[in-house]
């Protein structure tokens, strides 16, 4: 063997002591990935990229932001008008939150459709739910920082949720506020935590990816890879596919950033916070709307008042995802082979959209009734339909290998044929 070059020798020296290069080679290059992943599998890496974009733009914004009730709103306006490219960086960060939730919700529904939460990926799924909760907390606190009317009243409403806790509710709320209302101490701690949480998310994402790489990605067919003929190396096949998806997604995001930067926002948040005046119609950001609808839907239940019941139902609607792997009793992962579950999936998706629509509207008239029905169905889906359907449904025959539905004969014999097209002149 010829003597290796300088680069090779330096990287060998490092790798012998810190096997980072071998690690990257394993996890990003060779990493065997099912060969039948469709574009719904792009959204995991997209979410990771958006997390990085949010952290970078956030660190930059923190260089110009002042976390004080007297200066916060003005410092944000200064970012918009005076700081070089401040408008761009803030709009990327602001719309980035919405993009993050779009991507993560698609990622979650992908998991629901193809049964990605089932054994042996229960912990992978649960870590994902933890990430969702952390994202929600981070997004909420970030929305408070510009100290507009929606920031202030959103903060007031959400922190007041904790006052529903029996006996110690008021003490907990006072503790969260650091005073007797949302004020400067609240803003300061929200800024501190908003800066911290994304790094906690990074930590959980690392665990999420470790869990993912232990058993590899699920796939549209929902059966395990049976051998090397069922998988392809991550690089270049999925790096290039992820990059293509990233390009399309960046165009989509840039459309909002440059042409409709306030599309997802509320105009009221450009009015400085006024603790003496609540806006007439107050709604959370769009990604919280379904949960907001659940919060408002629940009436008094026996001895539990509506306030506590609503809070329990809202947190319960996310907490229930933690036990989803055990609620779904079907052995078949992919909805492709589950004729009844497939329909339930679409009904459930529609139910979530209805909840979002109800959440965006004032709780009056028929919205109350629709909200209650949709909330009841949400829990019915998880607690009754999934366990029952798993037992009663008769799944369609699952293919014997990933290759079978694509290449007749399971792909093993078809392999040499794949090299043929090269001869085409």
């Amino acid at each position, binding site marked *: 063997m010829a003597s290796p070059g300088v680069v090779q020798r330096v990287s060998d020296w490092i790798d012998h002591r810190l096997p980072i290069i071998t690690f990257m080679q394993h996890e990003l290059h060779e990493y065997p990935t099912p060969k039948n992943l469709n574009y719904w599998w792009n959204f995991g890496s997209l979410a990771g990229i958006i997390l990085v974009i949010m952290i970078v733009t956030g660190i930059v914004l923190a*260089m110009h932001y002042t976390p004080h009730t007297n200066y916060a709103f003005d410092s944000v306006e200064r970012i918009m008008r005076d*700081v070089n490219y401040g408008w761009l*960086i803030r709009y990327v960060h602001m719309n980035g939150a919405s993009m993050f939730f779009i991507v993560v919700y698609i990622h979650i529904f992908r998991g629901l459709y193809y049964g990605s939460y089932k054994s042996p990926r229960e912990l992978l799924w649960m870590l994902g739910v933890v990430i969702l909760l952390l994202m929600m907390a981070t997004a909420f606190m970030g929305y408070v920082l510009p100290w507009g009317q929606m920031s202030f009243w959103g903060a007031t409403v959400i922190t007041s949720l904790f006052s529903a806790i029996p006996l110690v509710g008021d003490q907990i709320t006072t503790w969260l506020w650091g005073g007797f209302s949302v004020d400067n101490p609240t803003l300061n701690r929200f800024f501190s935590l908003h800066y911290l949480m994304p790094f906690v998310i990074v930590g959980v994402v690392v665990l999420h990816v470790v869990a993912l790489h232990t058993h590899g990605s699920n796939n549209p067919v929902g059966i395990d890879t049976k051998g090397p003929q069922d998988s392809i190396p991550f690089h270049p096949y999925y790096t290039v596919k992820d990059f293509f998806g990233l390009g399309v997604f960046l165009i989509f995001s840039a459309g909002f950033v440059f042409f409709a930067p306030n599309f997802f926002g509320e105009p009221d948040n450009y009015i400085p916070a006024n603790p003496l005046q609540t806006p007439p119609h107050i709604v959370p950001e769009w990604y919280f709307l379904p949960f907001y609808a659940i919060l408002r839907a629940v009436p008094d239940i026996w001895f539990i008042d509506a306030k506590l019941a609503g809070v329990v139902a809202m947190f319960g609607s996310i907490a229930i995802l933690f036990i989803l792997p055990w609620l779904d009793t079907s052995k078949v992962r992919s909805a492709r082979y589950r004729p009844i579950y497939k329909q339930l999936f679409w009904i459930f998706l529609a139910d979530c959209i209805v909840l979002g629509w109800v959440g965006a509207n004032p709780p009056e008239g028929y919205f109350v009734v629709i909200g209650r029905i949709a909330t009841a169905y949400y829990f019915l889906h998880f607690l009754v339909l999934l366990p029952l359907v798993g037992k009663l449904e008769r799944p369609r025959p699952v293919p014997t290998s990933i290759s079978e539905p694509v290449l007749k004969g399971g792909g093993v014999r078809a392999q040499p044929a794949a090299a043929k097209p090269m001869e085409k002149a």
Partner: protein
Amino acid sequence: MASTHEQTAASPHDEGETRRDFLMLAAGAFGAFAAGAAVWPLVSQMNPAADTLAASTTEVDLSPIQEGQSITIAWRGKPVFIRHRTKAEIEQAQAVNVKDLPDPQTDAARVKRAQWLIVVGVCTHLGCVPQGQKAGEVRGQFGGWFCPCHGSAYDTSGRIRLGPAPKNLEVPAYEFLENSILRIG
């Protein structure tokens, strides 16, 4: 191009230029450009913002400053020394043999009107503010300013004469407007 194409078709693994190389280079170049365009705003945002730049000139009324007096004003967050020099100080500054100075500069090159010396009050060594503005402060052996940090001594033209500082005190851009108003910046 035709010959390249035939070559590619004949032996896809042959060394040489292929369409794939072209695509790789084009995509790579575009990716590098896009990365640069994305990073540029993140770097640029650390430069002075528009409101900071707007505050970069300041005006001062010279009429109350008597001969022999000095005042210090803030300009861009730094002190600016304005000294109404006496005849003796001006003569002292002009009498120096320029060739002997560490940073040779004539007094005439450092002032627009001989009685007004305007310099940035930041020592050119490591950024301390030299003493000598107030009556009673040490002015060093050349009658100008003396930096307490590392002992640099400046003369009545703000030129470095002794000590570790490499340069004369900086003369900011300034202009005399009507009615004894001075604009700095």
